[in-house]
């Protein structure tokens, strides 16, 4: 019997090549998309699971009542570390870490190679030795028990080790951090896996931290919230209880009243780092879209099967007459469907594996994944495949097995199929609604990406090179400026604590005329005299800081947003208060974008620095002409000025494009385009199936018409009117849906919605629908009408 089934199925494949091809394509597309995104979701959810202590590791994070834009901060004060161990017995191990780079975004750490050249490395941490007890790390060289216990030691990743010591045997060798801090390699560890939240390239022992930073009492500091505190709970300890205990212990700490610690499990560090649901929502949307695509493909399968069954009705009628039971026919059909879906799934697995580069590009990720190596996933996919096979085979199987053989053999079965036909119409209309929706949304995102890339930032972001520098010795800025400006290629130079898109210093101010309890969260920047001209910021009122006014060191420049918030009509000379000290406003700068363009412009205040470069600072240079030339010029100058300090100039416009927001939107755009194309393919197949059904049903009628001399045009027209109704439905559903997405799209600045995105989407769908109809009509037109009429 099984052999009979199988030969039957294979014969059917051979007999209905077009049908099989379309249907398989449909299923393969559906499954490939589903598999790809299952992998993504699986990959994201599998983050950090390689750690043997996965369930016991927590990061102690900080909830701040008064911070922006979220109350939840992944960092915490170093003081946590020393009180956790002492006060909470459930804590087995504590680990204090801090990013070495700290400071401005994108800055990393330099290593000086033996030949004097500089190696720039991101993702370095200060860390305690307990990292080896808490996280699962494999040491290639060194000893876990004491690798990071002593000051002046560093553990480096295998990759970094190969860069620093190509000849191998790194243990015990000296590395120069920056240009002047020698540390000894105490361990080499295998690189953290890709799906690890923590991806340290090197770890400097925490004991080195006070020596290098000069912060001797960092362990009692409750206000510097820039450390990572990890804990390993004892087996069986209740994290809720521990969370409550920690909150209790830290309740009455001075200067920490507005903040409270909370436990954040390792399982959430990746998908929801600061307790915001962003990644989870993203994963949810992806899962939903992937499931939707699979459902659409299954619906197509059902439709196509029913359409094709007109052709197979005779076979089924005969089988019944010669003694096949309903059950046999149904199970034959079902097994056929299951075989189709399984075949499609296997093909789809290959397609999915081959599409990984595309997926990585769409998602802006670098997932390196072998589907074949993941048994659990394969089993999951096969189960889904079976489910889809059963679900999409069941309905056609029941319909087909119930055919009345007498009617079928007379060719009469479909004379009253009107009802089921309209259900199919609704399904195809729903498919078109979804793809129209996806299309329009991707057009909207396309526009949005262009919009934010081209938005006027309020300052001149071209021809600027910047670098972070943290000099050992103080240096008068004027010295630097004079040397730089000797070159005609250098138009201007400034230094400041932050620059647009890079760095942010928060703080609260009150102002003259504010209500007693009123205060405002601001973004502040300490700039020198040259900052405003270098970035070509425009003044709305008043003036820039100037050396002619010595009192400017107690002055400030606010932006227009601040002016609105403070509600002043005449801002010049008004006072603001920062940490209790008064500053008087000397000017108002026109609003510009200090943060990514999709963030609202903050209340922004600039204060004058003392024009001496010390500590971590950002230098910005405006150049004219060729960038490479300017870069080597200023690099050369800076090397002579700061021979002991590493730095690297970066192109500001590159930093702008690397800003989180841009890749995010670009990735969103690609994602929707991808889904738009996929759903379009699937709904086209759906329409194809529907028209195939109509045409099959009417082959005779069309044949008669042709014999009677009816023009092909009228057949075409008849099919078109049917499709127009479905298009109308798609427009009614798809357009408002897309408009809603536009409305809820995050971001303070959006381009107004234009009709063109809708029109292009609709026209595109209409053209595809017309092409599909034309294909069928042409096929009918060139076919011989006698053929259609031959069998009664």
């Amino acid at each position: 019997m099984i052999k009979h089934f199988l030969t039957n199925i294979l014969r059917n494949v051979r007999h209905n090549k077009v049908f099989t091809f379309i249907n398989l394509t449909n299923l393969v597309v559906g499954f490939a998309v589903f598999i790809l995104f299952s992998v993504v979701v699986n990959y994201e959810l599998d983050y950090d699971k390689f750690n043997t202590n996965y369930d016991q590791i927590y990061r102690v994070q900080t909830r701040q009542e008064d911070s922006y834009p979220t109350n939840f901060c992944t960092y915490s004060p170093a003081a946590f570390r020393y009180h956790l161990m002492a006060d909470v017995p459930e804590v087995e191990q504590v680990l204090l870490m801090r990013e070495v780079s700290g400071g401005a975004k994108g800055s990393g750490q330099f290593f000086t190679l033996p030949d004097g050249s500089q190696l720039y490395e991101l993702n370095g941490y200060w860390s305690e030795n307990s990292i080896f007890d808490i996280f699962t790390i494999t040491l290639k060289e060194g000893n876990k028990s004491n690798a990071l216990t002593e000051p002046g030691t560093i553990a480096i990743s295998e990759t970094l080790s190969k860069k620093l010591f190509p000849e191998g045997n790194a243990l015990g060798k000296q590395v120069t951090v920056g240009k002047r801090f020698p540390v000894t390699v105490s361990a080499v560890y295998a690189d953290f896996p890709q799906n690890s939240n923590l991806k340290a390239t090197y770890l400097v022992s925490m004991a080195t931290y006070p020596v290098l930073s000069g912060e001797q009492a960092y362990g009692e500091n409750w206000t510097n919230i820039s450390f990572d505190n990890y804990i390993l709970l004892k087996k069986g300890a209740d994290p809720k209880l521990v969370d409550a205990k920690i909150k209790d212990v830290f309740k009455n700490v001075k200067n920490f009243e507005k903040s409270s610690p909370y436990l954040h499990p390792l399982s959430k560090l990746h998908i929801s780092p600061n307790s915001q649901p962003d990644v989870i929502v993203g994963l949810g949307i992806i899962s939903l879209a992937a499931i939707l695509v699979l459902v659409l493909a299954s619906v197509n399968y059902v439709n196509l099967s029913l359409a094709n069954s007109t052709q197979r009705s005779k076979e089924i009628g005969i089988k019944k007459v010669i003694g096949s039971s309903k059950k046999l026919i149904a199970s034959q059909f079902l097994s056929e469907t299951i075989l189709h879906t399984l075949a499609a799934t296997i093909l789809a697995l290959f397609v999915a594996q081959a599409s990984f580069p595309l997926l990585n590009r769409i998602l802006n990720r670098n997932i390196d994944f072998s589907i074949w190596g993941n048994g659990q996933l394969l089993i999951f996919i096969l189960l889904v495949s079976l489910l889809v096979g059963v679900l999409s085979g069941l309905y056609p199987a029941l319909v087909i097995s119930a055919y009345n053989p007498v009617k079928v053999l007379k060719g009469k079965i479909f004379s009253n199929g009107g009802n089921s036909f309209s259900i199919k119409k609704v399904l195809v209309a729903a498919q078109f609604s979804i793809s129209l929706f996806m299309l329009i949304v991707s057009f909207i995102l396309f526009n949005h990406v262009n919009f934010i890339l081209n938005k006027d930032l309020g300052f001149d972001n071209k021809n600027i090179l910047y670098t972070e520098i943290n000099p050992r010795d103080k240096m008068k800025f004027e010295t630097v400026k004079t040397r730089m400006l000797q070159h005609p290629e250098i138009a201007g130079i400034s230094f400041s604590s932050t620059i647009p898109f890079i760095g942010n210093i928060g703080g609260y101010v009150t102002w003259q005329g504010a209500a007693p309890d009123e205060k405002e969260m601001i973004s502040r920047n300490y700039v020198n005299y040259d900052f405003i001209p270098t970035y070509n910021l425009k003044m709305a009122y008043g003036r820039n800081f100037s050396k002619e006014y010595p009192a400017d060191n107690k002055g400030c420049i606010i932006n227009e947003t601040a002016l609105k918030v403070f509600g002043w009509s005449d801002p010049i000379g008004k006072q603001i208060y920062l940490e209790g000290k008064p500053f008087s406003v000397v000017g108002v700068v026109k609003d510009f974008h200090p943060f990514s363009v999709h963030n609202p412009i903050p209340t922004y205040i600039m204060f004058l620095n003392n024009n001496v470069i010390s500590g971590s600072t950002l230098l910005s240079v405006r150049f004219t002409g060729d960038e490479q030339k300017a870069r080597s010029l200023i690099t050369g100058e800076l090397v002579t000025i700061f021979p002991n300090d590493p730095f690297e100039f970066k192109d500001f416009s590159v930093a702008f494009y690397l800003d989180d927001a841009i890749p995010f939107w670009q990735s969103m755009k690609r994602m929707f385009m991808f889904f738009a194309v996929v759903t379009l393919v699937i709904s086209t197949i759906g329409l194809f199936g529907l028209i195939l059904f109509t045409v099959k049903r009417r082959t005779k009628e069309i044949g008669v018409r042709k014999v009677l001399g009816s023009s092909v045009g009228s057949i075409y027209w008849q099919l078109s009117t049917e499709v127009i109704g479905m298009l109308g439905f798609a427009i009614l559903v798809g357009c408002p849906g897309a408009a809603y997405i536009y409305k809820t799209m995050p971001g303070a600045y959006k381009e107004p919605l234009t009709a063109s995105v809708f029109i292009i989407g609709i026209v595109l769908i209409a053209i595809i629908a017309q092409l599909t109809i034309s294909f069928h009509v042409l096929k009918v037109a060139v076919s011989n009408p006698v053929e259609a009429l031959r069998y009664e």
Partner: protein
Amino acid sequence: MIYLNNIDKYYDSKFQRTFVLKAIKLEVKEGEFVSIMGPSGSGKSTLLNIIGLLDAPSAGEYSLYDKSVLDLKEKAKVDYHRNFMGFIFQAYHLIEEMTVYENIETPLIYKGVKSKDRQAMVADLLDRFNMVAKKDLFPQQLSGGQQQLVGIARAIIGKPKLLLADEPTGNLHSLQGEMIMETLKTLNDEGMTIIQVTHNEKFAEYGKRIIRLEDGIIRKDIAGNTKFASIVK
């Protein structure tokens, strides 16, 4: 073996009831060869389908071997189709995706006959119908007469007691038609009960009994070779 009493078949439309068969009374004994004749639309196929349990009468009694077969469950019906009767059609109705061999074999698979036995049975029939060389061909590759032979082979492979044939020669040249009729005659001689519908007077004569249907009513029921005629009202 077959007993029909007062069988009606009608279709109701909005304003009227159209009778296709009216008060059909028919008894067929084992081993008979009955030819049903009549003008187009007189209800011949309908009658045959009712006998073949493919269609249900609107009213009346129908029993096989004194057992009523009205309101049979699906399973029982399938059982009759598998073990009791075989069908032959004017349009052959072979399964196009299957070879000659597979077409003939399929009813045996439904019957649950073992693979070895199937092989022997199909080989026997192929041999008998001189079709051994054609066993791996698809129906489209055969002539009409050959296709109908396959149809007969498929109908009788399960050794049914009753063979129902609806215009088995309708699509064939007279020569091929004659060959088919000879085959049926041989089968009847071997004891198989046959009911055929035909438009061809000559082929009707192969039957031992000829029934003439007009407007759904049996006008004549003549025992063919005995020249005995009884007029049934």
